């Protein structure tokens, strides 16, 4: 079935529902819309598409001046890196189906991914990947010694994972609540030493390895391994949207009958027994039978509800945080790795954390690199100007690796922390929070429904966003 036919097919089956019976819910004359969706990221757009396919009148409001939310391809940076949602896993069924429906292709761009060549700087020593296994700075025992530093977090976290072979929502079962403890404590119990734990902490997205629940980390790697069971692109279990993941969110928005309104920052929600309204910072107000909010928890803290949110939900809004990340993108003027014969990319335990190089052989444009900083190290950059960040990072890199002196030209800074509509990359659960909040994030507040990756219970990341949008749309359709 070709692309056009597929679209026509979807439209015609959508039409059947309306023809067969009156929709269960419809604008009751007191509302302008059947549903308003807040947020034009993956979860909001997916919810809006599903509701429109079921003949609802839907309006999408977006705070930013662009579509996509945490899907954001830096189209003008060589190699078109993804600033946020990056890899589409084999198990990302809804995302893959939506991309195919909208005529998108997939690709694996030349940007190395986790298997690119890394050199390491640890405790001030610069070393090559091949020296790691036998190096005195390697803190691990036995076969673990062959795990390179940039793979330690993933590999060790997923080793003998108690969630393995469990259903994806098993992390919410009471029998696993015993792992809702500080992650470093879990690792120590398993016999890992302090230096191993310290190196695992380098690229963790939370502000410290002791402030993330072991259960959250175990779930993260459990879902990742589940993805590997499904191959979908040329025998691979991961890929990206060809040309950049943002093309998908753009196409999803384009497919809507009513285009999302941008620059609509929500400040207040209210509701009566018949409808719900959303108030924006620009003084506008929109009313619908149902509202679906995909607003991340840290942003929701600044938004008021009338009537107020239930106590437990408000507590979750106040306490649940998102991972931190900061990216400094540079153009690479000279191939410094050819000068010193080391791997192009650097993984370091100092505050630049990672410098990943793309287009080593000019595959998709000139070589470019990104200093990708997660967790507490990113706080350091919060109040720096762009110029100060570029200078600081370039100086640090030249200190680690003399061949990098004068090798970099600044392009742009991409910081979650500076984004008033995002406030982080993905939800992370602090020790104890899963038991307290995770199962309740999907509860509706009257006519207001919540979606977003943080409300997903099976999938994570971009597919978690789709899962949550689908669930919220079904909540509306079946209410």
């Amino acid at each position, binding site marked *: 079935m070709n692309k056009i036919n597929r679209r026509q097919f979807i439209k015609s089956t959508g039409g*059947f529902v309306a023809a067969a*019976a009156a929709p269960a819910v419809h604008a009751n004359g007191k509302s302008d819309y059947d549903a308003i969706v807040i947020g034009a990221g993956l979860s909001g757009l997916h919810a809006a598409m599903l509701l429109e396919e079921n003949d609802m009148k839907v309006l999408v409001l977006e705070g930013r001046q662009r579509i996509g939310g945490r899907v954001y391809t830096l189209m003008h940076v060589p190699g078109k890196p993804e600033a946020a949602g990056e890899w589409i896993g084999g198990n990302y069924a809804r995302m*893959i*189906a939506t991309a195919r429906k909208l005529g998108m292709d997939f690709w694996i761009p030349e940007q190395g991914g986790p298997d690119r060549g890394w050199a390491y700087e640890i405790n001030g020593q610069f070393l090559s990947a091949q020296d790691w296994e036998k190096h005195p700075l390697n803190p691990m025992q036995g076969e673990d010694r062959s795990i390179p530093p940039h793979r330690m977090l993933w590999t060790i976290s997923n080793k003998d994972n108690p969630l393995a072979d469990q259903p994806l929502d098993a992390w919410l079962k009471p029998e696993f609540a015993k792992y809702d403890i500080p992650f470093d404590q879990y690792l120590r119990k398993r016999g890992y030493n302090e230096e191993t734990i310290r190196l695992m902490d380098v690229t963790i997205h939370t502000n410290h390895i002791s402030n993330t629940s072991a259960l959250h980390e175990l779930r993260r790697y459990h879902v990742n391994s*589940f993805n590997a069971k499904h191959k979908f692109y040329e025998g691979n279990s991961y890929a990206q949207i060809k040309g950049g993941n943002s093309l998908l969110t753009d196409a999803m928005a384009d497919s809507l009958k009513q285009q999302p309104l941008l620059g609509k920052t929500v400040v207040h929600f209210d509701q009566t027994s018949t409808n719900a309204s959303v108030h924006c910072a620009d003084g506008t107000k929109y009313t619908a039978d149902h509202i679906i909010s995909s607003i991340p928890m840290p942003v929701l803290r600044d938004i008021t509800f009338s009537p107020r949110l239930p106590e437990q939900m408000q507590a979750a809004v106040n306490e649940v945080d998102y991972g931190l990340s900061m990216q400094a993108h540079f153009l690479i003027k000279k191939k410094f790795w050819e000068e010193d014969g080391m791997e192009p990319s650097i993984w370091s335990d100092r505050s630049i954390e990672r410098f990943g190089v793309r287009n080593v052989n000019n595959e998709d444009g000139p070589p470019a690199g990104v200093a990708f900083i997660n967790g507490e190290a990113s706080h350091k950059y919060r109040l720096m100007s762009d110029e100060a960040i570029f200078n600081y990072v370039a100086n640090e890199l030249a200190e680690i690796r003399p061949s990098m002196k004068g090798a970099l030209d600044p392009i742009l800074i991409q910081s979650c922390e500076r984004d008033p509509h995002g406030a982080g990359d993905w939800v992370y659960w602090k020790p104890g929070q899963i038991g307290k909040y995770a199962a309740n994030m999907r509860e509706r507040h009257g006519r207001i429904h919540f979606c977003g990756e943080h409300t997903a219970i099976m*999938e994570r990341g971009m597919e978690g966003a789709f899962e949550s949008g689908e669930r919220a749309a079904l909540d509306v*359709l079946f209410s």
Partner: protein
Amino acid sequence: MKRLLLTSLVASLILSVGSTAQAEESSTTEETEKQLMLGKRAFIRCVACHSLAEGEAHRTGPNLHGLFGATAGQKEGFAYSDALKNSTMEWNDENLRAWLLSPATVIPGNKMAFGGVPSEKELDALMAYLAEMTK
């Protein structure tokens, strides 16, 4: 395509009711229509992974044509988990209902990422929809 199928289905149901009381006939049809509409909505949970019509391509999950009465994990061209492939389970009414409530409980280690239909009402509708659409 689907629309025609459903229209003819509803028509054949009307015919099959035959010459019994008019009121009974129309309420049965109405019930069926309503059930299928609900079932179609419930199928939103499934549609990303599963196609229904004969010969349609597998997606993240297998095509479901001819589901009822088939042995689980045997459709050609789909890479099933060993757990499902070796299960010898028959897709009858009882097994399918249990599966749709919690696939991981019925066959542990299978690779269907589905948390389960949340209500009996939705499950009834989905079963009715699947029964018709996979024929």
